[in-house]
């Protein structure tokens, strides 16, 4: 039956087309011959790390560093795929996202860097930056960059609403309740289009400090997920009410918040060090205060950025360690690594230069920027939890935050997230 076969073929062909569209993925391979060429996999554009590579190669003419730049969305899966291969997929060093170090270590991807631990700790702005990457007593990655969060405010808009600005003393942060009350005044006075913005709505990075500060912990302990606990419920209800009361907008994606503050459309913004660049670019009359905390709780601030680890399967361990040392423990190299991304370096000397430069660029308004950041990094920075399956936990948490922002009851959303994340965690153990 001619028509029958043709139709079957057409259906099959349609299936093949669909399958192709669904699954396209590729794999490559690096080379590991006698000469020392290191491959460094990261999730940034090549220009970001080019400067530190140039600096390193100039001092180490026998070592060449090649980059493997993978888009962020595919980065973790690419690392999983290539490092599972026999030779480690030709990768010598790779960027390690906060939270995934435990999973990478358990999969046998990360070389032991314990012999660098003392030097790394001595060089870091704060020792816990190094400690967070210690698993089973072994150092498995070293953080090159870090972040913190600040409360930025637009002085003109606060004046218009008759709201007193928060103090810039790092030991005297506002409470989240004070911030909400001030935002309500701004709204009542109709002084700004938006009273308060977070830089990154609905992300665990941004909201983890709220739960921790309210006494709810990280929301995960081993394989127990607990956004339903009283501390997290307090934090989530506060978040929920921001939108119910119209202090913060729904439906605005995270690419826009910084720009809205920069254009003078928001009175308050909680954002990272990059918020300073935006405020300066907007020629705003602005000020900087430490990140708020919950009344009666302890101050807690978001932190961390990319760490770099060495593949357990590399043939060039010594050369890789040299490069990693230059990138993190050497002040010049660490400064070079952070320069293009305009992000905060973790090395204390590099940090001092960075903070001085940022403060100078921000003028009078930014005179406490460096002090606040250093204080927060050393006293109340909270790292994302070192748990097996963090990559499962985070997207589930983010989904819950988004639902609460859109009006779902915090208790209902938390119960749903707790059970749904626990189910998925069980599968992956």
């Amino acid at each position, binding site marked *: 039956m001619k028509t029958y076969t043709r139709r079957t073929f057409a259906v099959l062909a349609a299936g093949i087309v669909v399958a192709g569209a669904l699954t396209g993925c590729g794999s490559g391979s690096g080379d590991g011959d006698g000469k020392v060429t290191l491959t460094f996999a990261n999730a940034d554009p090549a220009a970001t790390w080019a400067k530190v590579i140039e600096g390193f190669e100039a001092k180490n003419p026998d070592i060449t560093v090649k980059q493997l730049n993978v888009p962020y969305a595919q980065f973790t899966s690419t690392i999983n795929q290539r490092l599972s291969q026999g030779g480690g997929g030709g990768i010598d060093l790779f960027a390690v996202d906060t939270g995934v170090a435990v999973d990478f270590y358990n999969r046998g991807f990360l070389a032991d860097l314990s012999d660098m631990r003392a030097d790394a700790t001595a060089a870091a702005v704060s020792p816990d930056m190094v400690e967070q990457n210690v698993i089973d007593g072994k150092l498995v990655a070293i953080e090159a960059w870090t972040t913190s969060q600040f409360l930025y405010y637009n002085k003109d808009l606060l004046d218009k609403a008759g709201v007193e600005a928060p103090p810039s003393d790092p030991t005297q942060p506002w409470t989240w309740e004070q911030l909400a009350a001030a935002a309500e005044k701004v709204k009542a006075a109709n002084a700004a289009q938006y009273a308060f913005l977070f830089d990154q709505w609905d992300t665990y990075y941004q909201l983890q400090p709220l739960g921790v500060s309210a006494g709810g912990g990280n929301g995960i302990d081993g394989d127990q997920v607990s956004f339903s606990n009283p501390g997290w419920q307090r934090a989530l209800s506060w978040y929920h009410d921001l939108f119910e009361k119209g202090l913060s907008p729904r439906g605005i*994606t995270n690419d826009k918040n910084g720009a809205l503050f920069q254009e003078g459309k928001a009175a308050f913004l909680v954002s990272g060090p990059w918020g300073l660049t935006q405020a300066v670019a907007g020629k705003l009359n602005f000020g900087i205060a430490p990140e708020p905390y919950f009344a009666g709780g302890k101050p807690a601030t978001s932190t961390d950025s990319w760490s770099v680890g060495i593949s357990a399967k590399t043939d060039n361990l010594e050369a890789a360690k040299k490069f990693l040392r230059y990138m993190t423990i050497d002040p010049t190299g660490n400064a070079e690594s952070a320069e293009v991304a305009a992000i905060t370096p973790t090395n204390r000397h590099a940090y001092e230069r960075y903070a001085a430069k940022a403060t100078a660029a921000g003028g009078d308004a930014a005179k406490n920027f460096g002090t606040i950041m250093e204080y927060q990094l050393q006293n109340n920075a909270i790292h994302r939890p070192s748990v097996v399956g963090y990559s499962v936990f985070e997207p589930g948490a983010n989904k819950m935050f988004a*639902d609460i922002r859109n009006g779902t009851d915090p208790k209902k959303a938390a119960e749903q997230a707790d059970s749904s994340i626990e189910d998925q965690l069980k599968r992956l153990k």
Partner: protein
Amino acid sequence: MADTAHRSAVALNDAAADRPAARPPVTRAKRRRARRDTALAFTLLAPALVAMVTMRVVPMFSAVWQSVQQLSLSQGRTTFAGLENYRFLLTNSDFHSVLLVTLVFNLVLNPAIVVLSTALALLLSQRIPWVGLWRSLVFVPAAVPGVVVTPIWSTALQPDGLVNAVLRAVGLPAQPFLTSSSQALFSIGIMVTWGALGYWMIFIIAGLKDIPESLYEVAMLDGAGWWRRLFSITLPLLRRPMSFVLIACTVGSFLIFAPVQILTKGGPNGSTNLIMYDIYNNAYQIGDLGVGQAEVVVLMLILAVIVAIQFRLLREDSK
């Protein structure tokens, strides 16, 4: 009569032409030439075949293979899991909701696109001034990549955005759109339709051009009005292009990803968690490649069934 005679003469001629070729046994030289032709054909087709095998067939089989594997995060080992990933999916209420959302979305969206693009094609094939301009304007959204259009829609649809400003200006209440679980999927549907209409309209216009003008002339001589001509001539003869649009559009709509990823990330409360986004979430965000690939296989099966049904309808239509 004359026509029949002519036709049989042609048939006779054809038969005469066929006979000498059929009679002598095939010589070795000829066979060699045939073989050479086949080899040449394969050589010329090779790039396309290699691309098809490596980029379509291999991924399909690898999806099936990976869908029976499971990754242990604590040991980092991938082991054979049999049908465990499928069992997890089929008993998981989140996945049931993904399937429901995807099916409802497609059941409403695809017929709507076919009807609307046909209506637009009919409208823009009338003799109206500047028809080329109108057609181009309708087509423009199809030429703009989704990742460019989506952020613009996101700004327009935000609660204090352009669309609500227009609604308020005409005295209607503002709507939550993407921030409400009852309106988000509908809003994405509108966006997709806006982008797709112009593209599918072109196919229907091509179909309209294929309908012989003489049929309309005869119908008009018989006194058929516009509606009569639409239902008795235009629509029946448009069945094939319309069926093609329905099939191609269904496959495309099942694979919608960018608007969900950019606008709603599957929320609020899973109301826009279309299957492609859920696959991405499982495979790339959570890192559960096995379940992601099992979902891919389920999606392939669903699509194969739907496309088979649509092909069947297409065949019966042509009887």
